[in-house]
């Protein structure tokens, strides 16, 4: 007996025909797919674990018992400071006598007793802990966002489902833009998750590790930059990383290739080339230095500068403005190339 795969549908075609969808609708579909992916869940777990590890590190570092121990060490050191100064001057005098040079200077007068703040012995305050977590975690959150964006689009090419997708949504620029938008939102989500967990953890640490009356510590220095702005910069960095990951996938069409390119760039260019060539002056255009300049509102590096007589290392500064302009330029360039490539190239 003959059997077809399709049962007849007697309803009017107007009821069966699709209504079409908007760009926002396409982004919604992409976000749904993103959420269903196993790698997204793995990324969320990774962010939770990493943030948890940083919070735990902050907890152990600011535990009252440890602070008390460090405070004892500090007091011992301050008590011994006059004796150390006296010993220094004695050694200095002996050397002057031995050498006959009255100009010998051991720098004893410059030996100052460190303060509690110098030793990091301050009250554990939530905002300061959060700032530390955000600065340390920014790069990792960005890497997770890049990986997520790259895999999100790369998987479509490796499974061949991009071709199927384009037979449903053939406007390539709109399709690519919806995927880039979803990857950017994923990056923002990953960063926000890390920041929120880090902040909650920091607040918990500040409460749990609040010293008793027997342990008197100074307040930490005021933050130079509002925490919210730092958080926004970390989110923006992850958004850019997500965009770059997705755009590279539009260009290279394979997640493994993207990871290879990114790691290769990190090792060969960032790790070797910028340090080795032009006496280190290429560091000004290093992505990592510019990320640091963007997130921490400035970055410094040392480059060798030589005169006829001698060479010496001098410190150079990368400003916050250069940081964000440079990073924005990189993101815009890679996204533009990805879009053009996706629009023009054949899809199998």
């Amino acid at each position, binding site marked *: 007996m*003959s*059997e*077809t*795969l*399709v*049962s*007849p*549908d007697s309803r009017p*075609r107007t009821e*069966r*025909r*699709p*209504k*079409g*969808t908007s760009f926002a*609708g*396409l982004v*919604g*579909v992409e976000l*749904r*797919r993103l959420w*269903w*992916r*196993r790698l997204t869940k793995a990324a969320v777990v990774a962010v939770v674990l990493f943030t948890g590890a940083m919070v735990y590190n902050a907890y152990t570092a600011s535990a009252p018992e440890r602070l008390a121990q460090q405070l004892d060490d500090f007091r011992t050191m301050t008590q011994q400071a006059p004796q150390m100064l006296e010993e220094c001057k004695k050694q200095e005098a002996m050397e002057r006598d031995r050498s006959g040079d009255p100009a010998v200077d051991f720098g004893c007068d410059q030996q100052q007793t460190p303060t509690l703040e110098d030793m990091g012995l301050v009250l554990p305050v939530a905002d300061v802990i959060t700032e530390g977590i955000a600065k340390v975690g920014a790069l990792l959150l960005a890497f997770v966002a890049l990986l997520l964006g790259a895999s999100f689009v790369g*998987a479509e090419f490796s*499974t*061949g*489902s991009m*071709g*199927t*997708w*384009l*037979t*449903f*949504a*053939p*406007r390539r620029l709109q399709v690519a833009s919806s995927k880039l938008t979803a990857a950017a939102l994923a990056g923002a989500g990953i960063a926000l998750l890390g920041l929120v967990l880090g902040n909650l953890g920091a607040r918990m640490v500040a409460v749990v590790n609040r010293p008793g009356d027997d342990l008197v510590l100074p307040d930490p220095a005021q933050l130079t930059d509002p925490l919210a702005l730092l958080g926004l910069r970390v989110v923006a960095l992850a958004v850019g990383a997500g965009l770059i990951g997705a755009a590279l996938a539009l260009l290279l069409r394979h997640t493994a290739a993207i990871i290879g390119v990114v790691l290769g760039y990190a090792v060969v260019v960032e790790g070797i080339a910028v340090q080795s060539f032009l006496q280190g002056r290429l560091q000004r255009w290093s992505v990592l230095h510019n990320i640091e300049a963007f997130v921490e509102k400035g970055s410094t590096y040392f480059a060798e500068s030589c005169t006829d007589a001698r060479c010496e290392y001098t410190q150079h500064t990368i400003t916050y403005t250069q940081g964000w302009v440079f990073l924005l330029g990189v993101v815009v360039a890679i996204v533009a190339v990805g879009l053009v490539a996706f629009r*023009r190239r*054949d*899809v*199998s």
Partner: protein
Amino acid sequence: MDVAVRTVNLRKTYLSRGSRRVAVTGLSMAVPLGGVHGFLGPNGSGKTTTIRMLLGLVRADSGTAEVFGEAVPKRLPQVIDRVGAIVESPKFFPTFTARQNLVLLAGAIGSPRHRVDEVLEATHLGDRGRDRYSGFSLGMKQRLAIAATLLKDPDLLIFDEPTNGLDPAGIREVRDTMRSLGAEGKTVLVSSHILAEVEQVADTVSIIGHGSLLAEGRVSDILGGAGASGVGQVRVGVASPDRAAQVLQAEGYTLTRDDAYLMVGTDDPSAVTRSLAGHGLYVSELVPVRADLESAFLALTAGEGLGGEADRVAGGRSDGGAS
């Protein structure tokens, strides 16, 4: 004639690792509106490339293509909702369930969520909707691909080698499905290199070779007019084939030897038996040989065959891949 698909001088060259391969060269064809249209050609003759160009997946070097009168790929968005296609093997996200894959595609075209369940039921996958696509058999993947095309309720369905890898029952299901859709008034464009498969379902065909059109028209017209054996040919088994051949040739029949048999061109098999019996030669076997698409195709391609690589290579080696 109203046409669903028309191409004029369509051409596509692939560039790969320093070599150029002409996949489609000046293809002009027309697929009539309604019914099943076979798109035939050997492996590597340009069928899949042509279909990809119609769907905007591959950019043509030159020439034009229209779907329902709209130039593609420029105005493809205007007609894409009327076109359902399965290009080569079905391709979905392997770790998602069948239902998840369809929900995403439904979202892309604004089809309501309940439509997903309907097409799953319609393709007899209702109870497998929550299974992962990666665990599906080839036949089930094919069903899911058909379910996806039905999300649009298309007027034109394009099936590219739809029975590849299917078992006999699956082949029959797909064949009956195509026939049924064609009977509903939809246009079904089915590409295949298996001529017997197309012959059973197609009303009209386009035959291509070397990326260009060799013949086009109704199946019956192709069979009768392509220089094949025509409808009048019988295979004759007789005790003395040499003497029988002399007798029949003397009476004006055209014939060829096929081992111990004679292949005789005639519209009247009974006349053959009468002629031979009149000379004391009695027929032991008389089998009408029906003209088929395969022989028509072989005639059109001058016996090039069905399995050969028909690509033209210019400036380097053939890269294979697209067909």
